[in-house]
């Protein structure tokens, strides 16, 4: 699994958990607003994503994300460069 797929998997799992829906429901309709994506749910997802991937997300970009894919992009861009 490449890095992006790993991130995509983690993001889908966390968003689905927060929405209390199966991952499949997100695959069917990846538009976040189509689910119960209210401010409380989104902030819970924010906290979980930041903790899971050890990143800090920009709240404005986070709110601009419309789909699960946008969210994956955001996390991928925010990843700290691997240290050697």
């Amino acid at each position, binding site marked *: 699994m490449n890095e992006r797929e790993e991130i995509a998997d983690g993001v889908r799992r966390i968003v689905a958990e927060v929405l209390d829906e199966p991952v499949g429901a997100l695959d069917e309709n990846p538009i976040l607003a189509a689910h119960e994506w209210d401010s409380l749910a989104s*902030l819970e997802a*924010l*906290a979980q994503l930041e903790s899971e991937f050890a990143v800090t997300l920009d709240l404005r970009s986070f709110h601009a994300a419309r789909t699960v894919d946008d969210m994956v992009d955001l996390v991928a861009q925010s990843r700290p460069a691997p240290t050697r």
Partner: protein
Amino acid sequence: MTAAEQAVALAADELDLWSGVREAVRAGRYPDPRVRARLVRERDPVLLRRVGRLLDRPGLTGDELRPIRVGVLAPFTVGPFTDLLRASLVAAGLAPALRVADYGSFDLALATGEFGVGDPELVVLLLDESVFLPDRWSAADVDDFTGQVQRRLADFCAAVSSGAAGTTASLVLHTVPLPAEVRDTFLAWRDRAAVTALWHRLNATLLELSHKHPQVLTVDLVGALADTPSAVRDDRLHRYGDLPYTDAALARLAHEVRRAAQARAGLSRKVLALDLDNTLWGGVLGEVGVEGIALGGLYPGNAYRQLQLAAQRLREQGVILVLTSKNDAATVTDALTGHPEVLLRPDAFSYTAVNWSSKAENLREAATHLGLSTGSVVFLDDSPFERGQVAGALPEVAVLPADGDPARLVRTLLEPGWFDTLELTETDRRRPQMYRGRADRSTFSAGFDSSHAYLRALDIQLTVEPANRYTVARIAQLAARTNQFNLTGVRFDQAETSAMAADDGHLVASCSVVDRFGDEGIVGALWVRRGDPTWEVLNLVLSCRVLGRGVELAIAGWLVRQARAAGARAVEGRYVPTTKNGAARDFWTTSGFAAVTGERFRLDLDGTEDPTPDWITTKEQ
């Protein structure tokens, strides 16, 4: 998962909290005591929040949970707090019905004393600095700031007082951290110090409300947060979502509110049952002797002494101490009486069970003797085997792990708050004296009265192999050190052991044990003369660490099979009583041997006898 498997997983710290709760909720039930015990230990706010949400199902059943109606009010977004609080309350054995007052109703509720959350038994008032900070303030005028904060504090206290007067519910509030952004706005050192001091007095006033109104319980959130390794505030969540506290801070608050709710519900525990070796002191008394135990002085001895001190302080507040140890009773009495660093002398314990019975059995007997239920017992032990055995047989006992770094022992004991009580009564202070008529159950018993289901769930594997040059030193060490399960007291040294191992007429074997809790290594050894037609056991020793699991019977089984395969007609052995080996007294008869004389026992190999218990697999090498 069976109850026994669950108990083993809990003791091994491998119980999956999420799936345990999910299974229970799917079946329409609250999680059982073992899953709840796991939940008490959970500190991850993400998981606690998810579990709390999962438990938000109407109509869950669970007989042993105490229902409690809880209302929550906050001048900000309550957010995850309700889920975190629900998880914490269920963990403590409470079945909460939670109601949150409408957003924005906080001021009105305080003004009118009407909380708008039905008829609660417990009202949690969440607070942040906004309750006390003036709407407009200037850091250039610290006196005006102080005056305004004091007025708002006075208004708040008056509101709490009238609220308390209008309800029978307990009101839980908490101390409030002064945000850095307020403190740092004051540029002058003197002014900043004045503001910080003001805030400390504010928190002290909140704490003192408990004095005026016994219904008010103030949790010291500020103090608790100092022990929480995460940020208290995420500015983004605060500005965007009106969430002044992070999930980690709210989880900590939920934990503290749980302690208050538990004390209010009368669920305070009354008994602390303590193990000895590697719990009240470092090291195994039976192996290192009273001079060898770690107690007092430098680390790690000081950690054990601090634990004794903590237990002593609990006792002064009415907690009854019970001693439960698999040990030789006389040696323990010597150590407790004679060791200069021991704080808990024999008379500190209202019930003493130094014996080889299962700990669950001892705790049950202790509770009966004290006239209390096993549900009022907290049990502290370093051995996962003992903890699992108790968790399996007596799930209502609160089991605490004493393994890991001894430096943490006092925290492990006190942090869950099992003994918290709203008020210390005269009865509490006198309770240990009332039980001064001390009971002693330190009789010898070699039986294993753990449930077979539990022993089966341990997946015990015994390996018996002939001594070789890598194991002979450990075998000789066991012979030298083992006093309790030592059949004849004969201690073959390394030279004798090596010589016997090399001789066809003898057999020396080492026994090692692996189970779900890990690899115990070589824990036993036997020395046998291979006579014709009778094999004679010269000695068999087994570390007391593995007693009570039937390992000795599996060793006997192995020996019988070896002898039979070699064509022997009988196996004979001896039990020679010493001052300390009562643990091994019944070994031969339990293994199916018959007494020939007082000391000699014999098994004729004419049948297919095999004493190996069905929960042990033996690997032969």
